[in-house]
């Protein structure tokens, strides 16, 4: 059956080496509260956009695009929670155009929590969470209409986007909204850079929530994954070095790292 035997012992060891630092730094973050996270201009702009919307008396919008229930959505929800609290503080409307029913239910719950955390539960209006369409371009058309009609002052585009990314970002640009875009897909990052005021690139989307909330678990995860990346970087350097040595001096007979990765368990079919 397809999908089996995808993990060799080496892959499991690497996974453990990636998860280990995360657990360690979560413990560290619980003891220490001074862990440094470098400044992210795009995340700082969230406060600015929320304040600007309150001053103008116009709504904010937070769109997770075509993100399904996944780790990317989980990262976006941290930011949504923060933006929701800001909207509740400033008594701004926060519009949540939705593409996926499952995500809609989760996003509604998170936003309700954000209003509750600010003691403004009565201000929470589920009608601001609008299901547009599951179809990509019907969703984009609905988003354009919503942004143009409501003349949003701040638009946050966080999550997974495809060809509709530029259509969404241009809609906000046309009504003069301050926009922050964040996507893990490199193709769409280019569109956001061109059409948004601030852009979070790739993993910065995952870091945004930790940066905003400074919660130990999120900070520890961020620190841990950075160390894991450092380890993987060293592996890449070592792998390139070994492959280069082998090609220049074939007699050395060094074992390439990819050979180690493919060593099996020695049982099963």
């Amino acid at each position, binding site marked *: 059956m397809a999908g089996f035997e995808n993990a060799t012992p080496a892959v499991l060891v690497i996974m453990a080496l990636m998860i280990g630092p995360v657990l360690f730094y979560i413990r560290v973050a619980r003891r220490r509260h001074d862990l440094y996270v470098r400044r992210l201009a795009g995340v700082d702009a969230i406060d600015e956009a929320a304040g600007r919307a309150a001053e103008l008396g116009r709504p904010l919008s937070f769109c997770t695009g075509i993100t399904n229930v996944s780790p990317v959505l989980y990262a976006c929800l941290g930011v949504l929670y923060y933006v929701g609290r800001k909207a509740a503080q400033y008594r701004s409307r926060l519009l949540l155009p939705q593409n996926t029913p499952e995500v809609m239910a989760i996003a509604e719950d998170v936003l309700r929590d954000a209003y509750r955390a600010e003691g403004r539960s009565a201000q929470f209006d589920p009608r601001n969470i609008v299901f547009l369409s599951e179809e990509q371009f019907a969703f984009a058309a609905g988003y354009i209409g919503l942004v143009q009609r409501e003349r949003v002052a701040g638009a946050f585009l966080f999550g997974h986007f495809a060809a509709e990314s530029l*259509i969404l970002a241009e809609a906000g640009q046309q009504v003069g909204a301050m926009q922050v875009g964040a996507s893990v897909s*490199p193709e769409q990052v280019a569109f956001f850079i061109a059409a948004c005021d601030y852009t979070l690139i790739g993993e910065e989307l995952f870091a945004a929530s930790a940066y905003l909330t400074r919660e130990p678990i999120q900070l520890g995860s961020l620190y841990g994954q950075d160390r894991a990346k450092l380890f993987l970087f060293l592996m890449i350097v070592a792998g390139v070095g070994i492959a280069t040595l082998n090609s220049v001096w074939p007699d050395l007979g060094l074992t390439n790292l990819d050979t180690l990765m493919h060593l099996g368990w020695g049982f099963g079919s």
Partner: protein
Amino acid sequence: MNFRSRLIKLVTFLGGIYFFLEFVLPGTVFGVKVDAYHDQISNGFITVAAMAAGLGLINLLMQHGSRIVFRRRDWIYSLALLTGLAVMIAVTLQDWRGTGRVADEVAGISRLADFAERITSDHEDGTEGVLPAAARNRALREAADRLLTRIEDESGALDLDRLGRGSIDHTLARGYLADAGNGAAAVRAAVAELAVTDGEAPDPAANAAVAGALRGLAESWRNLRNLEYEHSTPKHVYRLLFEGLFVALGSAMFSLLGFYIAAAAYRAFRVRSAESSLMMIAAVLVMLGQIPFGVWIWSGLPDVRLWLLEVPNSAAFRAITFGAGVAGLVMAFRMWFSIESESFDREGG
């Protein structure tokens, strides 16, 4: 931690460990088939999703139905939605029935062909508990007669002029109709050769000839009925609504992208800073390297373009993908073990 939170965390963990093991374990471990039930479990998830879709339909009817009944604000949009829903369901059901009818007719002919072969194989294998071969051949002949009568009746009732006299489809359909007629004649001739006298052993060649003739008839009948159905009213309405409306509207939205790319490129490539200047130079080199005019200016431009795309661009792409992949893995691990941040882990939240 309350009971609800514990339950959610337990279910999340069990779900996570199931898919993790499904991903990493071989199909058989120490002789135990660990993948035996995976398909059934996957079908279970699909069933749950189907039930959710049904629930969604009920919800939609209640929400928008009440808005129409009580003439609430924007009720006209709800009416448009429900009308569209009803029309599309009706048309899709009709289409499903139409295509299903053709498939059933063809499957019926194919089953008869399988039966003709089965009679011989059962006789040769000495299969017990079945009727004698001659009786089964008689049943086959009667079934074939009924089938041929029905096909001849339906062929006579077909109005191929609907397909447009002289059109390609009309010509094709006439050809398929002739093939079906020939096929029917071949089947009639072949069943006449079947051994139907009690005690007589079946002739494998005669049964094989019946099976072959039936399969040929099935093929030409499927082609004819499919082509005819393509020109039926339900199919026309379906195509009008789906391809003429839904797909066309999606394409219209997609085409907006061309204009937006131009507007965004103008803003991005305006020379305001060192970064935007660099972007503009890179973009101009890539664009010129892509077109014959660029080659006319300098033959090395396509190589420059290729280098820009394959070296700096690929490196940046890989870095972004790599970073996001590691961050996603860590986030997935946290989800699996419900290592929640305080924002999402309040009691009763």
